[in-house]
C-alpha cells in the first residue's frame, strides 16, 4: 500500500498542483503544510502576472478541486519529526502524531522565503515607515488602497527599488527572477489606482523575460519612469524620503524625493530547508536551495522529487509546470519499480 502513497511537502501553489495531478494519476496523496492554511505566498499576493488574474480566485478554485479528490489527505500546521528510509520508500513520523506514515515517493515543494531587508541599513526599512516591501504593497493592492503608512495619505511619488537582496555580493549573488516582472506589474496597478502619482522604478538591469516584455513596454507607455541607478542611502526630510542616487543616464547625483518607497525584495531558501535536506539526504546548492539531480525534477535520493521555487526561484507558471512534471516523474518512478 505504501507504494502508491505520495507525500507532498509544502502546501503552496506548487504543492497543491502536484497533489491534484498525483490524484488524477490515481495515487493516494498526503499534502503537508507547516502553516495553518494552505496557499503559501499566494495568500499574500493581489493579482498575478502576466494576465492580472486574482490570486484569491486562483487559490479558491484550486481548493475546490482539492476538496473534490478523496484521495488527497491534507494536513496543515504539521511538520516532519523523523524520516526513515526503507526498501519500499520512506517511513515518516509527523510531529504530534503516533502512527508513522509510509510513502513510496516524496515531492518537496517548500518554496522560498522573502528576503528580509532589515539588514540593509542604508534603505532604512523598519526605521522609515514609508519604506515597505513589495509583499506589503501586495497587501495594500489587495485592498485597493495604496496609502503612505506614516500619514494614511495618498503618496504623490512611489519609487520601486530593484535587486534588494539579489545580484549583490553583500547579500545574494543570484537574480531572484521574478522581482522585475512583479515590480512592473505592481507599478501598473499603483498607476491605475492613483493615476496622478509619479511612479518610478530604479533598476540595474530590467529582466522581464519572454512575453513579460509586454508588461515592461506597457509600463513605459503608461508613463512609469525607469532610472538606471542603485540607491546608496535613504534619509527622511520633512516627512518625505530622500534617495541618494547617481542618475546614470545624466551622470548627475541627485537626492530623489519619494513619498513611498517599495523594496523589490528577492527570495531566499525557505527556513526549514536544511532540516528537510537532512531528513531526505538531499544536497543543497551553494545558494542554499535544494540541488536537483540529473532528471529535470529529480534528486539524488531515490523517490524524492523537487518542484517549484524550492530548487531555485521561479515564477508561478514555472512552478505549476514543475508541479505537473513532478507528478509525472513520481508515476514513472512507481512504474519502473513494479517492473
Amino acid at each position, binding site marked *: 500500500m505504501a507504494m502508491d502513497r505520495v507525500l507532498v511537502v509544502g502546501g503552496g501553489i506548487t504543492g497543491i498542483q502536484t497533489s491534484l495531478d498525483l490524484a488524477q494519476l490515481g495515487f493516494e496523496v498526503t499534502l503537508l503544510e507547516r502553516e495553518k492554511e494552505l496557499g503559501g505566498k499566494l495568500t499574500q499576493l493581489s493579482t498575478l502576472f502576466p494576465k492580472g488574474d486574482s490570486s484569491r480566485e486562483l487559490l479558491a478554485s484550486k481548493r475546490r478541486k482539492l476538496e473534490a479528490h478523496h484521495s488527497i489527505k491534507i494536513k496543515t500546521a504539521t511538520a516532519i519529526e523523523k524520516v526513515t528510509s526503507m526498501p519500499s520508500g520512506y517511513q515518516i513520523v509527523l510531529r504530534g502524531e503516533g502512527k508513522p506514515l509510509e510513502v513510496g515517493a516524496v515531492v518537496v515543494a517548500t518554496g522560498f522565503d522573502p528576503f528580509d531587508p532589515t539588514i540593509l541599513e*542604508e534603505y532604512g526599512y523598519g526605521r522609515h515607515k514609508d519604506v515597505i516591501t513589495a509583499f506589503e504593497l501586495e497587501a495594500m493592492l489587495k485592498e485597493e488602497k495604496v496609502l503612505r503608512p506614516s500619514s494614511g495619505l495618498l503618496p504623490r511619488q512611489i519609487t520601486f527599488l530593484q*535587486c534588494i537582496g539579489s*545580484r*549583490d*555580493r*553583500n547579500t545574494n549573488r543570484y537574480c531572484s527572477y521574478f522581482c522585475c516582472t512583479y515590480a512592473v506589474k505592481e507599478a501598473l496597478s499603483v498607476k491605475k489606482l492613483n493615476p496622478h502619482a509619479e511612479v518610478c522604478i530604479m533598476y*540595474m*538591469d530590467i529582466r522581464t523575460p519572454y512575453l513579460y516584455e509586454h508588461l515592461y513596454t506597457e509600463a513605459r507607455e503608461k508613463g512609469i519612469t525607469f532610472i*538606471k*541607478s*542603485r*540607491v*546608496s*542611502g535613504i534619509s527622511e526630510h520633512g516627512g518625505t524620503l530622500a534617495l*541618494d*542616487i*547617481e*542618475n*546614470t543616464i545624466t*551622470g548627475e*547625483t541627485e537626492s530623489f524625493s519619494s513619498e513611498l518607497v517599495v523594496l523589490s525584495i528577492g527570495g531566499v531558501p525557505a527556513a526549514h530547508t536544511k532540516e528537510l535536506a537532512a531528513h531526505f539526504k538531499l544536497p543543497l546548492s551553494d545558494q542554499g536551495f535544494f540541488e536537483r539531480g540529473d532528471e529535470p525534477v529529480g534528486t539524488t535520493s531515490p523517490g524524492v522529487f523537487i518542484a517549484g521555487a524550492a530548487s531555485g526561484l521561479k515564477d508561478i507558471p514555472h512552478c505549476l509546470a514543475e508541479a505537473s512534471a513532478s507528478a509525472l516523474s513520481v508515476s514513472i518512478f512507481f512504474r519502473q519499480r513494479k517492473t
Partner: protein
Amino acid sequence: MSIYSCYQCGLCTGICPKRLITKYSPRRDLEKTLLNKDELDLWSCLTCGLCSQYCPQGVGYLDFMKEVRSNKRVDEDTIAHKSVFNLISQLMIKFPEKSGVSTDFSGESDPKCPIGYFPGCLDFLDSFLEVGVNFHSIGDAALKLMNKVGVKPQMMGLKCCGHDELWQGNREEFERLKDLNTHSIKESGIKTLVTTCAECTRTFALDYNLDIEVLHISQFLEKYQGKLNVKGEGIVTYHDPCRLGRHMQIYDPPRNLISQVKGMNLVELENTKEDCQCCGVSAWLGCTTESKALLVNKLDEAEKTAAATLLTTCTKCLAHLSCVLNEKPPLKEFQIKVQDLTTFLAEKLATHI
C-alpha cells in the same frame, strides 16, 4: 572582482565622499575604461574604499585606481606641501646608504629584539607641517607603551614605506623603496613589524611581500591589554582610518584598547567602522578648499558625540584633521581636540603602580 563585472548601476558615485564636493564619478571612470576611452579622472579618488564595500559586484576599485595611476604623473602643483615628501623619498632612493627615517625616540630599545618598531615619517611631518601636532611624541609614546608591556623593540630606521608614491602612481619609486626596505627588514631578523600609522600598516601588510607579521600598534598592544593599567575620565570618540578599517578590516583592536582606559567612555560616531567617512585627503592629493568641507563635516559629527577628543590611528588623518582645527583665521569654532591613540594611551598610563 575585476572591473569587467561592473553593472554601471552608479551606487559608487551615489555613495562617494568626493562626489559631495566635486563632480567626480567612479562609475564614469569605470565606464570610460570599459569603453577603452582615455581621459580618466585619475587623481580625484580618495581611495577610501567605501564604494567597493557596497558595490553589488564587489568591483575592486582600489586595485583599479592603483593600476590606472601606475606610471602616470600627477601635476606636481596639485600635490600638497610642494611635493616635499616626494623629494624626501627620492633622496632616500638616491642615497640609500645614508638615509632613513629618524629613530631617535626616548625609551628603551634593543637592536636584537625580534619585534621591530617603524616610526614612519613622524619627524619629517614635524619639519614641514604646522598643524599644532607634535608628531615626534607619537614615537616616544609608542616606545613608552611597548616598554610598559615589557618589550624593548628594535628601532627600524627604514626608508619611507612608499605609500604616497604608490597611490600617486609613482610605481618605480615605490618598487625601489619596497626593495630597499624588504632587504633591510630581512637583514634585521625581525619577526614582527609594528607601526603607529595606518598607512604604513596597510602598505607593509598588503603592498609588500614580507614573510613576517605586520601589526598596527593597536593590534600589538591589544595582546598585552592587562599589563597597560591606564586610567582617565570623560568621553572620547574614534575615527576609523580607511587604511586600517575598510582596507584591512581592523576595527576592534583600537576600540578594545580605549575600553581598557578605566573611567573613559567611548561614544561612536554616527558613521562608524565600515561606514566611517573619509578624512578628505589621500597621498597628499586633493587638499583643496572643498576637501576642507569634508573635514569640517567630520569634526561636526565628532562634536555631536559630546566627546572631548577625537582619536585616530593614522598619522595622516591626524595631520589633516588637525590642519582644519588650526586654520587661521578659524574655519569654525570647534571645542573638540584630535589626538593619536598612541599618545593618548601613553598619557593615561598610571604613573605609579
